[in-house]
């Protein structure tokens, strides 16, 4: 007997832990796209974001028994994906492969409204974003792309509001500098 799509995350997690592995598809459908934009902006590539989300979902299944609050599966999955994005960034830095360029699709695809200047500015901003530190980029993406308040970001990441603001304010200055260079 399958769970309804309306089942809570906690009910689905309990069903999977009890051996009904197929119920995990409910969580995959529910969260596959929720954090895709975050991963794409963090990694500067749709392909890398797809890999990161896929890895995070598989890793979450592997560690499901360690999810202490199954009803907060979404936040727990976010932390796994966040660690995956940070690890990917560190790996690229170690290998000397900086995120110098972003995918066309991530860096602002051509729009039907034909506002070329706006598209160009969006691309410039996306390319500047990947030159921030991962911590600065994360807080910028969560606040200005995902639209979260500092308090919500603090609850998700465990950082204090004061340290998040400090990172963000440094990010503003760095972005201004990078966009000046670009223009």
């Amino acid at each position, binding site marked *: 007997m399958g769970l309804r799509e309306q089942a809570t995350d906690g009910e689905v997690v309990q069903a999977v*832990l009890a051996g009904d*592995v*197929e119920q*995990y*598809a409910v969580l*995959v*459908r529910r969260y*596959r*796209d929720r954090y*895709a*934009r975050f*991963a*794409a902006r963090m990694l500067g590539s*749709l392909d890398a*974001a*797809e890999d990161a*989300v*896929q890895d995070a*979902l*598989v*890793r979450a*299944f*592997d560690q499901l*028994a360690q999810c202490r609050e199954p009803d907060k599966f979404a936040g727990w999955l976010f*932390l796994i994906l*966040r*660690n*995956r994005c*940070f*690890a*990917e960034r*560190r*790996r690229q830095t170690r290998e000397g492969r900086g995120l110098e360029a972003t995918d066309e699709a*991530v860096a*602002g695809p051509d729009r039907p409204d034909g506002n070329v200047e*706006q598209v160009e*500015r*969006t691309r*410039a*901003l*996306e390319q500047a974003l990947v030159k921030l530190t991962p*911590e600065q980029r994360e807080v910028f993406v969560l*606040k*200005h*792309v995902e*639209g979260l308040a*500092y308090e919500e970001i603090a609850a998700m*990441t*465990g*950082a204090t509001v004061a*340290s998040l*603001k400090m990172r*963000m*304010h440094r990010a*503003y*200055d760095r972005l*201004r*500098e990078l*966009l*000046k260079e670009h223009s």
Partner: protein
Amino acid sequence: MTQAYHQLVKRLLDGELSLSDLPAELRAEGAEALRLLGTVDRTPVLLPVQLDARVMAEVRRRARSPLRRAWRRLVEPRDVELRLRVRPWVVWGGALAVAATVALLFAWPPPSPGGARPVRMAARDSVFVRFVLYAPGAKRVAVAGTFNQWDQNAAPLVRLGAGGIWTITLALPQGQHQYAFVVDGERWVPDPAAPGIDDGFGRRNSVVAVTAHGARTL
């Protein structure tokens, strides 16, 4: 070198002020900053539908794995009904032996050259754990782990004198925590006083297990 934004302009970008709240001389800078935010692309990203099938194929493969089944049998809690028929002197003797063992453990803690070790009990369900790293050339050292969401700014270590010893004591909840030291904000170092485990992404982490009786590295 581009000039940094004025603090009031940063508060404008944070949404705490409006453009009209700024003094007249800052409004042009504020307008420029708002144009920057106006270019943020908030278009939703939708991943290919094939991702679901790929994830579920991998999930099924892992669920079938004999290794995973064996691991689950080992780690998953289960109800066990235990019936014992003992004489009262066995119970009292056993209790005394356990009490003596616990007393010995607390009287002579095993020596630890560094790394993570218990200090004393913290609040209920937490234990104070001291992290120690010998890093004579470092300018700053922090410890990041699952207990602080790998935030490398959350737990900076303090240098003890000029000898290169860095230390911090944290109250950690009971459970297993992975961690690593971050030296000078860029170099991730596993605890040299503890065995490392692969984090799955090519880096080594250390693990500390915190119980009601203390903490030990794994």
